């Protein structure tokens, strides 16, 4: 009797578990499907694409599409592939991520640990900045960039991304630093350390996990941005997202799906890379430096 009950219970559990896994696997497949189609298509020849099925494996692996996407595909009149735009994006994203992260850390440090009159108000304003839709700032930003004489330049795009990202980076760091006891700053003050000394010697070494979170967030945002890229760039300074759009939209005769797919994957690789590499450090950072000593 007792045994039966236990068995029933465990049987039920196994069934539940199996059902759960089945559902999870179905969802995972559903989400991975587009990626699968993209990779498979990018490795097919045009003939293969035309005659085969969408999800069928390539009859023969062809890597030509990748080469063409990287250095030969046409974006409008020029046919130099994604390569130059990829580097534009790197030139925009790397400084913009670094600057906005450092400034966000400073802001968060001041707002959480050096409270001054009106610091809560300024924090509220910065938070508000997070919720302003992109479209709203396009025109004013264009005017500001014009006045600053950096319209259409890489520097201009860096500026835009830094300004727009500041709200988020400040929020991240403020919420992280608010958990650090104020007595730490007091102890350092008695020890004679000043504002920057305390920041660099005490807060920065504690910040690895939140820096990683911020960098992942900012890099993804900036790398994937299309609207600012298309609005505030000119020929020669366009980021990869804009170039990708141009490649896909400028067809001469037959549509090269394999090149389009390869280009899309190339454009997405860096964010994927950041997740894989930094994600590891993220977990390491979380477990290593415990603040509460």
């Amino acid at each position, binding site marked *: 009797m007792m045994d039966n009950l236990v068995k029933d219970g465990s049987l039920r559990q196994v069934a539940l578990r199996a059902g759960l896994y089945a559902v999870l696997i179905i969802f995972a497949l559903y989400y991975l499907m587009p990626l699968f189609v993209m990779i498979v298509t990018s490795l097919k020849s045009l003939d293969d694409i035309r005659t085969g099925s969408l999800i069928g494996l390539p009859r023969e692996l062809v890597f030509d599409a990748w080469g063409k996407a990287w250095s030969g595909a046409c974006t409008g009149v020029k046919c130099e592939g994604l390569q130059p735009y990829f580097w534009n994006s790197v030139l925009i994203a790397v400084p913009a991520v670094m600057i906005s992260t450092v400034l966000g850390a400073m802001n968060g440090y001041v707002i959480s640990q050096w409270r001054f009159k009106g610091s809560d108000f300024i924090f509220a304003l910065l938070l508000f900045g997070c919720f302003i839709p992109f479209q709203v700032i396009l025109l004013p930003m264009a005017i500001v960039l014009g006045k600053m004489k950096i319209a259409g330049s890489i520097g201009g795009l860096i500026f835009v991304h830094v300004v727009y990202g500041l709200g988020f980076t400040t929020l991240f760091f403020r919420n992280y630093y608010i958990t650090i006891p104020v007595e730490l700053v*007091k*102890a350092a*003050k*008695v020890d*004679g350390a000043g504002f920057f000394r305390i920041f660099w010697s*005490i807060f920065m*070494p*504690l910040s690895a996990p939140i820096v990683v979170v911020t960098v992942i967030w900012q890099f993804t945002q900036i790398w994937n941005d299309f609207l600012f890229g298309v609005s505030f760039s000119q020929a020669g300074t366009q980021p990869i997202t804009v170039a990708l759009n141009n490649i896909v939209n400028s067809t001469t005769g037959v549509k090269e799906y394999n090149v389009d797919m390869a280009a899309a994957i190339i454009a997405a690789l860096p964010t994927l890379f950041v997740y894989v590499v930094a994600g590891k450090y993220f977990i390491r950072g979380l477990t290593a430096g*415990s603040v509460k*000593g």
Partner: protein
Amino acid sequence: MSNLILSIENLYKSYGATEVLKDINVSIQRGEFLVLVGPSGCGKSTLLNCIAGLEEVNAGAINIGGRDMVGVAPKDRDIAMVFQSYALYPTMTVGKNITFGMKVRGVDAATQAKKLADVAKLLQIEPLLNRKPGQLSGGQRQRVAMGRALVREPQLFLFDEPLSNLDAKLRVEMRTEIKRLHSNLKASIVYVTHDQIEAMTLATRIVVMKDGIVQQIGTPSEIYNHPANMFVADFMGSPSMNLIPATVEALPTGLAIKIKQENGTLELMDDTKIKGLKMGAKRELLIGLRPENITNPTANSRLVAPCRIEVVEPAGSDTFITTSLGEKPITARLRADTVVSPGAEIDLAFNLASASYFDAGNGERLN
């Protein structure tokens, strides 16, 4: 060099509309161990922070070593502080924690190393120098925090409940260690604690605070034997002082005391004088008597009266009993070998020589 290390005059501090410190006046001489006690939230930490310059004051003057501290940054006040939570730098090793201040002040590496070695030896933390604070026990952290303060060799140490996170045994050990440090280093110390045994054993003088107001400043014995008001009487000492409602009458022969008892009245005589009580006048008040002043009678006990035992609490070295006087439970402290049982009557001797008399209304001391 003046011997006055710290003087605080008419200090006021508020956070917004809440007044936290009200008209604080305290001064300490070189080598003094001043202990601040008071209930949680009475402003002890705030006062330390004001002394350290970590909080702005609203009014009043703070002088350290004869210098006015208005506008002087914490690092220039020649103080060192041990915080309630220790506040060790979590990413630095123990050694770096201790030398951080010297590094910031540009002390040369050789001196840093020497001082670190000296302090590590004194506090017995040499094997820990390369660990991070997260890898230390509470007592070890406490010593590191102490070490960080000691290498500074300041005029004035500020300790904010440094032992509060420790277990009872370690607390007693560290208490002795601090006492030894104090006498070895001849340091001047302001020390905050909740623990009145800590206060009694460490202090050269005690400041009792309540709601941001200083209630009394005095030596441990003054605080214990002559509490300035009922709050101090009740707060210091464990078990706390008995406060017995009574009627007194000033007679030519002395003070006649009448205390209501279960059946009848307990009458005692004392030779003290009550403030503002004219000859022949009567007054309701409270008599403060510590448990050790209600004891087993001896041959020369003058005031002895029978009382009914309600509760018996043997405590090893003594036996505490509870009886009822003036309709309030009263604790008496008897020899451990006294044979007592609840419900029985026993003769108790009252030692009024160290009795305190308090106004029933405002609680001020009357004798």
